[in-house]
Protein backbone atom coordinates (compact mmCIF):
# COMPACT_ATOMS: atom_id res chain seq x y z
CA UNK A 1 0.00 0.00 0.00
CA UNK A 2 2.88 2.33 0.73
CA UNK A 3 3.95 2.00 -2.86
CA UNK A 4 0.53 2.99 -4.11
CA UNK A 5 0.23 6.05 -1.91
CA UNK A 6 3.68 7.12 -3.06
CA UNK A 7 2.43 6.88 -6.65
CA UNK A 8 -0.71 8.82 -5.84
CA UNK A 9 1.40 11.41 -4.11
CA UNK A 10 3.59 11.74 -7.20
CA UNK A 11 0.52 12.15 -9.40
CA UNK A 12 -0.89 14.81 -7.08
CA UNK A 13 2.36 16.78 -7.06
CA UNK A 14 2.52 16.56 -10.87
CA UNK A 15 -1.16 17.40 -11.31
CA UNK A 16 -0.49 20.51 -13.36
CA UNK A 17 1.26 18.34 -15.96
CA UNK A 18 -1.71 15.98 -16.06
CA UNK A 19 -3.85 19.02 -16.73
CA UNK A 20 -1.57 20.09 -19.59
CA UNK A 21 -1.57 16.63 -21.11
CA UNK A 22 -5.27 15.95 -20.64
CA UNK A 23 -6.64 17.16 -24.02
CA UNK A 24 -3.82 15.43 -25.90
CA UNK A 25 -4.37 12.23 -23.94
CA UNK A 26 -8.13 12.39 -24.52
CA UNK A 27 -7.73 12.75 -28.29
CA UNK A 28 -5.05 10.04 -28.46
CA UNK A 29 -7.21 7.61 -26.53
CA UNK A 30 -10.59 8.40 -28.09
CA UNK A 31 -9.43 8.66 -31.72
CA UNK A 32 -6.34 6.44 -31.60
CA UNK A 33 -5.98 3.75 -28.97
CA UNK A 34 -9.69 3.00 -28.50
CA UNK A 35 -10.51 2.59 -32.22
CA UNK A 36 -7.44 0.38 -32.70
CA UNK A 37 -8.43 -1.85 -29.80
CA UNK A 38 -12.02 -1.84 -31.05
CA UNK A 39 -10.82 -2.84 -34.49
CA UNK A 40 -8.79 -5.72 -33.08
CA UNK A 41 -11.77 -6.79 -30.98
CA UNK A 42 -14.10 -6.72 -34.01
CA UNK A 43 -11.62 -8.91 -35.91
CA UNK A 44 -12.45 -11.73 -33.49
CA UNK A 45 -16.22 -11.44 -33.90
CA UNK A 46 -18.76 -12.61 -36.49
CA UNK A 47 -19.41 -9.79 -38.97
CA UNK A 48 -23.17 -9.95 -38.64
CA UNK A 49 -23.00 -9.40 -34.87
CA UNK A 50 -19.96 -7.08 -34.75
CA UNK A 51 -21.91 -3.89 -34.11
CA UNK A 52 -24.30 -5.36 -31.53
CA UNK A 53 -23.74 -4.72 -27.84
CA UNK A 54 -22.93 -8.43 -27.33
CA UNK A 55 -21.13 -9.68 -30.44
CA UNK A 56 -20.48 -13.37 -31.05
CA UNK A 57 -16.80 -14.20 -30.71
CA UNK A 58 -15.46 -16.58 -33.35
CA UNK A 59 -11.80 -16.83 -32.33
CA UNK A 60 -9.43 -16.78 -35.26
CA UNK A 61 -12.11 -17.68 -37.83
CA UNK A 62 -11.84 -14.32 -39.62
CA UNK A 63 -8.07 -14.65 -39.89
CA UNK A 64 -8.41 -18.21 -41.23
CA UNK A 65 -10.96 -17.03 -43.76
CA UNK A 66 -8.79 -14.07 -44.80
CA UNK A 67 -5.70 -16.22 -45.33
CA UNK A 68 -7.82 -18.67 -47.32
CA UNK A 69 -9.11 -15.89 -49.57
CA UNK A 70 -7.21 -15.97 -52.90
CA UNK A 71 -8.17 -12.34 -53.60
CA UNK A 72 -6.59 -11.25 -50.31
CA UNK A 73 -3.41 -13.25 -50.93
CA UNK A 74 -3.10 -11.79 -54.42
CA UNK A 75 -3.81 -8.33 -52.98
CA UNK A 76 -1.14 -8.78 -50.30
CA UNK A 77 1.43 -9.91 -52.88
CA UNK A 78 0.64 -6.92 -55.08
CA UNK A 79 0.85 -4.58 -52.10
CA UNK A 80 4.31 -5.90 -51.24
CA UNK A 81 5.51 -5.65 -54.86
CA UNK A 82 4.11 -2.15 -55.22
CA UNK A 83 5.68 -1.09 -51.92
CA UNK A 84 9.10 -2.44 -52.89
CA UNK A 85 9.03 -0.75 -56.29
CA UNK A 86 7.72 2.53 -54.87
CA UNK A 87 10.19 2.72 -52.00
CA UNK A 88 13.06 2.02 -54.41
CA UNK A 89 11.88 4.46 -57.07
CA UNK A 90 11.06 7.29 -54.65
CA UNK A 91 14.28 7.03 -52.67
CA UNK A 92 16.44 6.71 -55.77
CA UNK A 93 14.77 9.70 -57.40
CA UNK A 94 14.85 11.78 -54.22
CA UNK A 95 18.49 10.98 -53.47
CA UNK A 96 19.57 11.61 -57.04
CA UNK A 97 17.80 14.93 -57.23
CA UNK A 98 19.03 16.00 -53.78
CA UNK A 99 22.62 15.24 -54.79
CA UNK A 100 22.16 17.22 -58.00
CA UNK A 101 20.74 20.25 -56.17
CA UNK A 102 23.36 20.03 -53.44
CA UNK A 103 26.23 19.91 -55.92
CA UNK A 104 28.17 22.95 -57.03
CA UNK A 105 26.73 22.45 -60.52
CA UNK A 106 23.44 24.18 -59.79
CA UNK A 107 23.71 27.57 -58.17
CA UNK A 108 21.24 29.86 -59.88
CA UNK A 109 17.66 28.63 -59.80
CA UNK A 110 18.33 26.12 -57.03
CA UNK A 111 15.29 27.26 -55.03
CA UNK A 112 13.06 27.08 -58.11
CA UNK A 113 13.95 23.44 -58.68
CA UNK A 114 13.33 22.59 -55.01
CA UNK A 115 9.94 24.28 -55.10
CA UNK A 116 8.96 22.51 -58.32
CA UNK A 117 9.62 19.08 -56.82
CA UNK A 118 8.18 19.91 -53.39
CA UNK A 119 4.97 21.68 -54.46
CA UNK A 120 3.10 18.38 -55.10
CA UNK A 121 3.74 17.36 -51.46
CA UNK A 122 1.48 20.15 -50.20
CA UNK A 123 -0.98 19.86 -53.08
CA UNK A 124 -4.15 18.08 -51.90
CA UNK A 125 -3.63 14.47 -52.98
CA UNK A 126 -7.17 14.14 -54.32
CA UNK A 127 -6.65 17.11 -56.64
CA UNK A 128 -3.26 15.87 -57.81
CA UNK A 129 -4.49 12.36 -58.54
CA UNK A 130 -7.63 13.62 -60.28
CA UNK A 131 -5.41 15.58 -62.66
CA UNK A 132 -3.16 12.55 -63.22
CA UNK A 133 -6.14 10.32 -63.86
CA UNK A 134 -7.20 12.59 -66.72
CA UNK A 135 -3.64 13.11 -67.96
CA UNK A 136 -3.54 9.34 -68.60
CA UNK A 137 -6.98 9.36 -70.27
CA UNK A 138 -7.13 8.15 -73.86
CA UNK A 139 -9.40 10.87 -75.21
CA UNK A 140 -8.73 13.86 -72.91
CA UNK A 141 -5.23 13.14 -71.71
CA UNK A 142 -2.16 15.14 -72.61
CA UNK A 143 0.14 12.16 -72.19
CA UNK A 144 -1.04 10.13 -75.17
CA UNK A 145 -1.49 13.22 -77.29
CA UNK A 146 2.17 13.98 -76.60
CA UNK A 147 3.33 10.43 -77.40
CA UNK A 148 1.31 10.54 -80.63
CA UNK A 149 2.92 13.84 -81.59
CA UNK A 150 6.34 12.22 -81.20
CA UNK A 151 5.17 9.20 -83.21
CA UNK A 152 5.55 6.89 -80.21
CA UNK A 153 3.14 4.04 -79.35
CA UNK A 154 0.30 4.92 -76.99
CA UNK A 155 0.59 4.30 -73.23
CA UNK A 156 -2.48 2.42 -72.01
CA UNK A 157 -2.15 3.89 -68.51
CA UNK A 158 -5.01 3.06 -66.15
CA UNK A 159 -7.05 1.15 -68.71
CA UNK A 160 -4.74 -1.86 -69.01
CA UNK A 161 -3.89 -4.40 -66.32
CA UNK A 162 -0.25 -4.30 -67.42
CA UNK A 163 0.33 -0.60 -66.95
CA UNK A 164 -2.10 0.39 -64.18
CA UNK A 165 0.34 -0.25 -61.33
CA UNK A 166 3.20 1.67 -62.92
CA UNK A 167 0.79 4.53 -63.65
CA UNK A 168 -0.12 4.76 -59.97
CA UNK A 169 3.54 4.53 -59.03
CA UNK A 170 4.39 7.53 -61.22
CA UNK A 171 1.52 9.63 -59.85
CA UNK A 172 2.47 8.76 -56.27
CA UNK A 173 6.14 9.50 -56.92
CA UNK A 174 5.09 12.93 -58.17
CA UNK A 175 3.17 13.48 -54.94
CA UNK A 176 5.67 12.08 -52.40
CA UNK A 177 9.24 12.28 -53.72
CA UNK A 178 9.70 15.96 -52.78
CA UNK A 179 9.27 15.05 -49.12
CA UNK A 180 12.07 12.46 -49.23
CA UNK A 181 14.20 14.89 -51.22
CA UNK A 182 14.15 17.62 -48.56
CA UNK A 183 15.14 15.10 -45.91
CA UNK A 184 18.14 14.06 -48.01
CA UNK A 185 18.94 17.74 -48.63
CA UNK A 186 18.76 18.51 -44.90
CA UNK A 187 21.15 15.63 -44.22
CA UNK A 188 23.52 16.68 -47.02
CA UNK A 189 23.60 20.21 -45.63
CA UNK A 190 24.82 19.12 -42.19
CA UNK A 191 27.48 16.66 -43.38
CA UNK A 192 31.11 17.15 -42.51
CA UNK A 193 32.76 18.66 -45.57
CA UNK A 194 36.24 18.59 -44.04
CA UNK A 195 36.23 14.81 -44.45
CA UNK A 196 35.66 15.18 -48.18
CA UNK A 197 38.51 17.61 -48.51
CA UNK A 198 40.76 15.26 -46.61
CA UNK A 199 39.73 12.38 -48.89
CA UNK A 200 40.35 14.61 -51.87
CA UNK A 201 43.83 15.51 -50.71
CA UNK A 202 44.48 11.81 -50.15
CA UNK A 203 43.71 11.27 -53.82
CA UNK A 204 40.21 9.76 -53.61
CA UNK A 205 38.22 9.85 -56.85
CA UNK A 206 34.80 11.49 -57.01
CA UNK A 207 33.17 8.06 -56.89
CA UNK A 208 35.25 7.01 -53.85
CA UNK A 209 34.38 10.24 -52.07
CA UNK A 210 30.68 9.56 -52.63
CA UNK A 211 30.80 5.89 -51.78
CA UNK A 212 33.02 5.99 -48.71
CA UNK A 213 32.73 9.50 -47.32
CA UNK A 214 29.36 11.00 -48.20
CA UNK A 215 27.01 8.00 -48.42
CA UNK A 216 27.82 6.70 -44.90
CA UNK A 217 26.99 10.16 -43.54
CA UNK A 218 23.58 9.97 -45.24
CA UNK A 219 22.61 6.94 -43.19
CA UNK A 220 20.16 8.85 -40.92
CA UNK A 221 18.22 10.21 -43.89
CA UNK A 222 18.27 6.83 -45.60
CA UNK A 223 16.87 5.08 -42.52
CA UNK A 224 14.18 7.70 -41.89
CA UNK A 225 13.14 7.83 -45.53
CA UNK A 226 12.99 4.05 -45.80
CA UNK A 227 10.78 3.78 -42.72
CA UNK A 228 8.52 6.63 -43.83
CA UNK A 229 8.24 5.32 -47.37
CA UNK A 230 7.49 1.77 -46.19
CA UNK A 231 4.67 3.04 -43.97
CA UNK A 232 3.46 5.31 -46.76
CA UNK A 233 3.30 2.79 -49.58
CA UNK A 234 2.14 -0.24 -47.57
CA UNK A 235 -1.08 1.66 -46.90
CA UNK A 236 -1.55 3.11 -50.40
CA UNK A 237 -5.20 4.09 -50.64
CA UNK A 238 -6.14 7.54 -51.94
CA UNK A 239 -4.54 7.08 -55.34
CA UNK A 240 -6.52 3.84 -55.80
CA UNK A 241 -9.82 5.44 -54.82
CA UNK A 242 -9.30 8.37 -57.17
CA UNK A 243 -7.72 6.66 -60.16
CA UNK A 244 -8.60 2.96 -60.48
CA UNK A 245 -11.01 1.67 -57.78
CA UNK A 246 -8.78 -1.39 -57.57
CA UNK A 247 -9.02 -2.24 -61.28
CA UNK A 248 -8.49 -3.14 -63.97
CA UNK A 249 -8.77 -6.84 -63.21
CA UNK A 250 -7.85 -6.27 -59.51
CA UNK A 251 -4.34 -5.22 -60.55
CA UNK A 252 -4.35 -2.24 -58.16
CA UNK A 253 -6.56 -3.76 -55.46
CA UNK A 254 -4.10 -3.21 -52.59
CA UNK A 255 -4.82 -4.40 -49.04
CA UNK A 256 -6.05 -1.05 -47.68
CA UNK A 257 -8.53 -0.72 -50.50
CA UNK A 258 -9.68 -4.33 -50.36
CA UNK A 259 -10.23 -4.11 -46.60
CA UNK A 260 -12.21 -0.92 -47.07
CA UNK A 261 -14.39 -2.58 -49.73
CA UNK A 262 -15.18 -5.46 -47.38
CA UNK A 263 -16.02 -3.01 -44.62
CA UNK A 264 -18.34 -1.20 -47.00
CA UNK A 265 -20.10 -4.53 -47.67
CA UNK A 266 -20.60 -5.05 -43.94
CA UNK A 267 -17.95 -7.78 -43.66
CA UNK A 268 -16.54 -6.08 -40.55
CA UNK A 269 -14.81 -9.14 -39.08
CA UNK A 270 -12.73 -9.87 -42.17
CA UNK A 271 -12.07 -6.18 -42.89
CA UNK A 272 -10.68 -5.56 -39.39
CA UNK A 273 -8.69 -8.83 -39.52
CA UNK A 274 -7.02 -7.49 -42.67
CA UNK A 275 -6.39 -4.15 -40.99
CA UNK A 276 -4.73 -5.95 -38.07
CA UNK A 277 -2.58 -8.04 -40.43
CA UNK A 278 -1.49 -4.95 -42.37
CA UNK A 279 -0.75 -3.16 -39.09
CA UNK A 280 1.47 -6.09 -38.05
CA UNK A 281 3.31 -5.95 -41.38
CA UNK A 282 3.83 -2.18 -41.11
CA UNK A 283 5.25 -2.50 -37.59
CA UNK A 284 7.52 -5.45 -38.36
CA UNK A 285 8.86 -3.94 -41.58
CA UNK A 286 9.48 -0.44 -40.29
CA UNK A 287 11.03 -1.74 -37.06
CA UNK A 288 13.39 -4.02 -39.01
CA UNK A 289 14.37 -1.20 -41.35
CA UNK A 290 15.11 0.91 -38.29
CA UNK A 291 17.06 -1.80 -36.46
CA UNK A 292 19.10 -2.72 -39.56
CA UNK A 293 19.89 0.96 -40.06
CA UNK A 294 20.89 1.51 -36.44
CA UNK A 295 23.00 -1.63 -36.26
CA UNK A 296 24.88 -0.52 -39.34
CA UNK A 297 25.57 2.82 -37.68
CA UNK A 298 27.22 1.16 -34.68
CA UNK A 299 29.42 -1.11 -36.70
Amino acid at each position, binding site marked *: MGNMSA*TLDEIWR*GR*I*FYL*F*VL*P*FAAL*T*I*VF*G*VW*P*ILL*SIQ*VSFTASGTALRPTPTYVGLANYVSVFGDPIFLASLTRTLIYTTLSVGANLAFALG*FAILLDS*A*LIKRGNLF*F*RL*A*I*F*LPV*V*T*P*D*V*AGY*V*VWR*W*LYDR*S*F*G*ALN*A*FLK*MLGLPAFSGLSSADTAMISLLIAELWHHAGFYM*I*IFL*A*NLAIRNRALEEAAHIDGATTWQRWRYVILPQLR*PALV*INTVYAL*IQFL*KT*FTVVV*VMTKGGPNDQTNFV*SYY*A*YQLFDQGRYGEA*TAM*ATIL*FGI*VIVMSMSAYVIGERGANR
Partner: protein
Amino acid sequence: MNDMRPNRLLQIAAYAVAGVTSALFLYPYWWMLVSALRPTRAIMGNPLRFFPERFDLAIFTEIGRIGGVELSVYAWNSVLITTLSTLLSVAVTALGAYALVRRPDLPGFRLLRYGFLVTIMYPYMLLVIPVYLVMFKLGLLGSYAGIILFLALGPIQFFLFEQFFRAIPGEVIEAALIDGASEAQVLFRIVLPMAAPITATVALITFLLNWSQWFPILVVSRTPDTYTLPVALLSMNSELGSNFQGIMALAVLTTLPVAVLFLMAQKRVMAGMASGAVKG
Protein backbone atom coordinates in the same frame (compact mmCIF):
# COMPACT_ATOMS: atom_id res chain seq x y z
CA MET B 1 39.77 22.52 -54.37
CA ASN B 2 40.37 23.99 -57.79
CA ASP B 3 39.68 20.91 -59.88
CA MET B 4 36.44 20.30 -57.97
CA ARG B 5 35.00 23.28 -59.79
CA PRO B 6 32.50 21.84 -62.26
CA ASN B 7 33.24 22.03 -65.92
CA ARG B 8 30.92 23.77 -68.31
CA LEU B 9 29.55 20.70 -70.09
CA LEU B 10 28.66 18.95 -66.86
CA GLN B 11 26.91 22.08 -65.67
CA ILE B 12 24.78 22.27 -68.81
CA ALA B 13 23.80 18.62 -68.37
CA ALA B 14 22.87 19.25 -64.73
CA TYR B 15 20.64 22.18 -65.68
CA ALA B 16 19.05 20.15 -68.46
CA VAL B 17 18.16 17.30 -66.07
CA ALA B 18 16.89 19.62 -63.33
CA GLY B 19 14.99 21.78 -65.82
CA VAL B 20 13.24 18.92 -67.62
CA THR B 21 12.33 17.16 -64.36
CA SER B 22 10.92 20.38 -62.86
CA ALA B 23 8.95 21.06 -66.03
CA LEU B 24 7.46 17.55 -65.85
CA PHE B 25 6.54 18.09 -62.19
CA LEU B 26 4.91 21.46 -62.89
CA TYR B 27 3.13 20.54 -66.12
CA PRO B 28 0.11 18.89 -64.39
CA TYR B 29 -0.62 22.24 -62.72
CA TRP B 30 -0.49 24.10 -66.01
CA TRP B 31 -2.62 21.48 -67.75
CA MET B 32 -5.17 21.67 -64.92
CA LEU B 33 -5.36 25.47 -65.22
CA VAL B 34 -5.65 25.48 -69.00
CA SER B 35 -8.22 22.65 -68.95
CA ALA B 36 -10.34 24.58 -66.46
CA LEU B 37 -10.57 27.43 -68.98
CA ARG B 38 -11.34 25.39 -72.10
CA PRO B 39 -14.64 23.76 -73.11
CA THR B 40 -14.56 19.97 -72.77
CA ARG B 41 -15.01 19.48 -76.51
CA ALA B 42 -12.03 21.69 -77.31
CA ILE B 43 -9.84 19.65 -74.97
CA MET B 44 -10.87 16.39 -76.64
CA GLY B 45 -9.88 17.90 -79.98
CA ASN B 46 -6.49 19.07 -78.80
CA PRO B 47 -5.43 18.09 -75.26
CA LEU B 48 -1.96 19.57 -75.67
CA ARG B 49 -2.85 23.17 -76.45
CA PHE B 50 -0.57 25.27 -74.24
CA PHE B 51 -2.86 28.29 -73.84
CA PRO B 52 -6.66 28.41 -73.73
CA GLU B 53 -8.45 29.67 -76.86
CA ARG B 54 -9.87 32.52 -74.83
CA PHE B 55 -9.90 33.60 -71.24
CA ASP B 56 -13.35 32.58 -70.00
CA LEU B 57 -14.08 32.10 -66.30
CA ALA B 58 -17.73 31.13 -66.84
CA ILE B 59 -17.05 27.58 -65.61
CA PHE B 60 -16.61 28.79 -62.06
CA THR B 61 -20.21 29.97 -62.02
CA GLU B 62 -21.40 26.84 -63.85
CA ILE B 63 -20.13 24.62 -61.03
CA GLY B 64 -21.92 26.81 -58.47
CA ARG B 65 -23.84 23.74 -57.26
CA ILE B 66 -22.32 20.28 -56.92
CA GLY B 67 -24.28 17.32 -55.61
CA GLY B 68 -27.13 19.62 -54.55
CA VAL B 69 -24.89 21.81 -52.37
CA GLU B 70 -23.57 25.28 -53.12
CA LEU B 71 -19.89 25.44 -54.04
CA SER B 72 -19.53 28.23 -51.49
CA VAL B 73 -20.62 25.81 -48.74
CA TYR B 74 -17.77 23.43 -49.59
CA ALA B 75 -15.32 26.34 -49.67
CA TRP B 76 -16.58 27.64 -46.33
CA ASN B 77 -16.38 24.14 -44.82
CA SER B 78 -12.79 23.85 -46.00
CA VAL B 79 -11.84 27.15 -44.39
CA LEU B 80 -13.76 26.48 -41.18
CA ILE B 81 -12.69 22.87 -40.63
CA THR B 82 -9.05 23.50 -41.57
CA THR B 83 -8.73 26.64 -39.44
CA LEU B 84 -10.40 25.25 -36.33
CA SER B 85 -8.64 21.88 -36.49
CA THR B 86 -5.32 23.70 -36.92
CA LEU B 87 -5.88 25.92 -33.87
CA LEU B 88 -6.98 22.95 -31.79
CA SER B 89 -4.07 20.85 -32.99
CA VAL B 90 -1.49 23.50 -32.11
CA ALA B 91 -2.92 24.12 -28.64
CA VAL B 92 -3.47 20.48 -27.68
CA THR B 93 -0.17 19.22 -29.10
CA ALA B 94 1.94 22.01 -27.62
CA LEU B 95 0.57 21.42 -24.11
CA GLY B 96 0.74 17.63 -24.44
CA ALA B 97 4.24 17.49 -25.88
CA TYR B 98 5.48 19.95 -23.23
CA ALA B 99 4.13 17.86 -20.37
CA LEU B 100 5.53 14.64 -21.84
CA VAL B 101 8.97 16.19 -22.36
CA ARG B 102 9.17 17.91 -18.95
CA ARG B 103 7.99 14.96 -16.84
CA PRO B 104 8.39 11.70 -18.80
CA ASP B 105 8.70 9.95 -15.42
CA LEU B 106 5.14 10.68 -14.24
CA PRO B 107 2.93 7.56 -14.04
CA GLY B 108 1.21 6.87 -17.38
CA PHE B 109 3.18 9.39 -19.44
CA ARG B 110 5.46 6.86 -21.09
CA LEU B 111 2.48 4.66 -21.88
CA LEU B 112 0.65 7.61 -23.42
CA ARG B 113 3.60 8.39 -25.66
CA TYR B 114 3.74 4.77 -26.85
CA GLY B 115 0.00 4.81 -27.44
CA PHE B 116 0.42 7.86 -29.62
CA LEU B 117 3.33 6.34 -31.55
CA VAL B 118 1.33 3.15 -32.20
CA THR B 119 -1.62 5.23 -33.40
CA ILE B 120 0.47 6.95 -36.04
CA MET B 121 1.88 3.60 -37.21
CA TYR B 122 -1.62 2.23 -37.73
CA PRO B 123 -2.66 2.34 -41.40
CA TYR B 124 -4.48 5.66 -41.38
CA MET B 125 -7.20 4.68 -43.82
CA LEU B 126 -7.99 1.62 -41.75
CA LEU B 127 -8.02 3.64 -38.53
CA VAL B 128 -10.82 5.73 -39.96
CA ILE B 129 -13.06 2.64 -40.07
CA PRO B 130 -13.07 1.98 -36.31
CA VAL B 131 -13.12 5.75 -35.73
CA TYR B 132 -16.49 5.64 -37.47
CA LEU B 133 -17.69 3.21 -34.81
CA VAL B 134 -16.33 5.46 -32.04
CA MET B 135 -17.98 8.55 -33.56
CA PHE B 136 -21.21 6.58 -33.75
CA LYS B 137 -20.99 5.67 -30.07
CA LEU B 138 -20.22 9.27 -29.10
CA GLY B 139 -22.99 10.68 -31.29
CA LEU B 140 -20.52 12.75 -33.32
CA LEU B 141 -21.38 11.37 -36.78
CA GLY B 142 -22.27 14.10 -39.23
CA SER B 143 -20.99 16.89 -36.97
CA TYR B 144 -18.26 19.44 -37.55
CA ALA B 145 -17.00 18.68 -34.04
CA GLY B 146 -16.31 15.05 -34.92
CA ILE B 147 -14.32 16.01 -38.00
CA ILE B 148 -12.35 18.76 -36.29
CA LEU B 149 -11.48 16.66 -33.24
CA PHE B 150 -10.22 13.79 -35.39
CA LEU B 151 -8.07 16.08 -37.55
CA ALA B 152 -6.38 17.63 -34.51
CA LEU B 153 -3.91 14.77 -33.99
CA GLY B 154 -0.86 14.40 -36.16
CA PRO B 155 2.66 13.00 -35.90
CA ILE B 156 4.58 15.87 -37.45
CA GLN B 157 3.03 18.42 -35.07
CA PHE B 158 3.96 16.30 -32.07
CA PHE B 159 7.53 15.64 -33.20
CA LEU B 160 8.20 19.32 -33.98
CA PHE B 161 7.04 20.45 -30.53
CA GLU B 162 8.74 17.56 -28.75
CA GLN B 163 12.02 18.34 -30.48
CA PHE B 164 11.76 22.02 -29.61
CA PHE B 165 10.90 21.50 -25.93
CA ARG B 166 13.70 18.95 -25.53
CA ALA B 167 16.21 21.52 -26.74
CA ILE B 168 15.28 24.09 -24.07
CA PRO B 169 18.10 24.09 -21.49
CA GLY B 170 16.94 22.78 -18.11
CA GLU B 171 18.66 25.72 -16.36
CA VAL B 172 16.26 28.21 -17.91
CA ILE B 173 13.31 26.46 -16.29
CA GLU B 174 15.16 25.72 -13.03
CA ALA B 175 16.09 29.38 -12.66
CA ALA B 176 12.49 30.49 -13.05
CA LEU B 177 11.27 27.90 -10.54
CA ILE B 178 13.90 29.02 -8.01
CA ASP B 179 12.69 32.58 -8.50
CA GLY B 180 9.30 31.37 -7.32
CA ALA B 181 7.46 30.97 -10.62
CA SER B 182 4.75 28.31 -10.75
CA GLU B 183 4.81 25.60 -13.45
CA ALA B 184 1.94 27.36 -15.23
CA GLN B 185 3.90 30.62 -15.21
CA VAL B 186 6.99 28.84 -16.53
CA LEU B 187 4.95 27.47 -19.41
CA PHE B 188 2.93 30.55 -20.31
CA ARG B 189 5.49 33.29 -19.55
CA ILE B 190 8.77 31.62 -20.56
CA VAL B 191 8.41 28.47 -22.66
CA LEU B 192 5.51 29.39 -24.95
CA PRO B 193 6.90 32.83 -25.89
CA MET B 194 10.16 31.08 -26.79
CA ALA B 195 8.14 28.61 -28.84
CA ALA B 196 6.44 31.29 -30.98
CA PRO B 197 8.42 30.54 -34.17
CA ILE B 198 7.96 26.76 -33.93
CA THR B 199 4.27 27.32 -33.18
CA ALA B 200 3.94 29.31 -36.40
CA THR B 201 5.66 26.54 -38.33
CA VAL B 202 3.42 23.86 -36.83
CA ALA B 203 0.29 25.92 -37.53
CA LEU B 204 1.32 26.43 -41.14
CA ILE B 205 2.12 22.77 -41.79
CA THR B 206 -1.05 21.60 -40.03
CA PHE B 207 -3.13 23.97 -42.13
CA LEU B 208 -1.60 22.63 -45.34
CA LEU B 209 -2.04 18.99 -44.28
CA ASN B 210 -5.59 19.36 -43.00
CA TRP B 211 -6.74 21.29 -46.07
CA SER B 212 -5.88 18.14 -48.06
CA GLN B 213 -7.78 15.72 -45.80
CA TRP B 214 -10.71 13.93 -47.36
CA PHE B 215 -11.26 10.40 -46.06
CA PRO B 216 -12.11 11.13 -42.41
CA ILE B 217 -14.40 13.93 -43.58
CA LEU B 218 -16.18 11.63 -46.01
CA VAL B 219 -16.57 8.92 -43.36
CA VAL B 220 -17.75 11.16 -40.52
CA SER B 221 -20.14 13.17 -42.73
CA ARG B 222 -23.73 12.00 -43.07
CA THR B 223 -24.60 14.37 -45.93
CA PRO B 224 -22.57 16.49 -48.39
CA ASP B 225 -23.34 19.53 -46.19
CA THR B 226 -20.14 18.95 -44.21
CA TYR B 227 -17.95 18.10 -47.23
CA THR B 228 -14.85 20.16 -47.93
CA LEU B 229 -13.46 21.01 -51.38
CA PRO B 230 -11.35 17.83 -51.79
CA VAL B 231 -14.32 15.63 -50.83
CA ALA B 232 -16.58 17.49 -53.25
CA LEU B 233 -13.93 17.08 -55.94
CA LEU B 234 -13.73 13.35 -55.30
CA SER B 235 -17.48 12.87 -55.50
CA MET B 236 -17.66 14.98 -58.66
CA ASN B 237 -14.86 12.91 -60.20
CA SER B 238 -16.69 9.66 -59.38
CA GLU B 239 -19.93 10.73 -61.10
CA LEU B 240 -20.80 9.07 -64.34
CA GLY B 241 -20.66 11.21 -67.47
CA SER B 242 -18.40 13.59 -65.63
CA ASN B 243 -18.06 17.23 -66.51
CA PHE B 244 -14.35 17.29 -67.30
CA GLN B 245 -13.96 21.05 -67.41
CA GLY B 246 -15.87 21.39 -64.15
CA ILE B 247 -13.64 18.81 -62.45
CA MET B 248 -10.53 20.70 -63.51
CA ALA B 249 -12.02 23.98 -62.30
CA LEU B 250 -12.80 22.45 -58.91
CA ALA B 251 -9.29 20.96 -58.77
CA VAL B 252 -7.91 24.49 -59.32
CA LEU B 253 -10.04 25.86 -56.47
CA THR B 254 -8.88 23.03 -54.19
CA THR B 255 -5.21 23.50 -55.02
CA LEU B 256 -4.78 27.24 -55.39
CA PRO B 257 -5.19 28.40 -51.74
CA VAL B 258 -2.61 25.96 -50.35
CA ALA B 259 -0.23 26.39 -53.28
CA VAL B 260 -0.21 30.17 -52.71
CA LEU B 261 0.15 29.78 -48.95
CA PHE B 262 3.03 27.36 -49.43
CA LEU B 263 4.86 29.59 -51.90
CA MET B 264 4.56 32.53 -49.49
CA ALA B 265 6.02 30.53 -46.61
CA GLN B 266 8.04 27.89 -48.47
CA LYS B 267 11.19 28.18 -46.41
CA ARG B 268 9.42 27.63 -43.10
CA VAL B 269 7.32 24.77 -44.46
CA MET B 270 10.18 22.83 -46.04
CA ALA B 271 12.52 23.30 -43.06
CA GLY B 272 9.74 22.37 -40.62
CA MET B 273 8.70 19.25 -42.49
CA ALA B 274 12.29 18.09 -42.80
CA SER B 275 13.09 18.51 -39.11
CA GLY B 276 9.72 17.14 -37.94
CA ALA B 277 10.39 14.02 -39.95
CA VAL B 278 13.99 13.59 -38.86
CA LYS B 279 12.87 13.52 -35.23
CA GLY B 280 10.33 10.77 -35.89
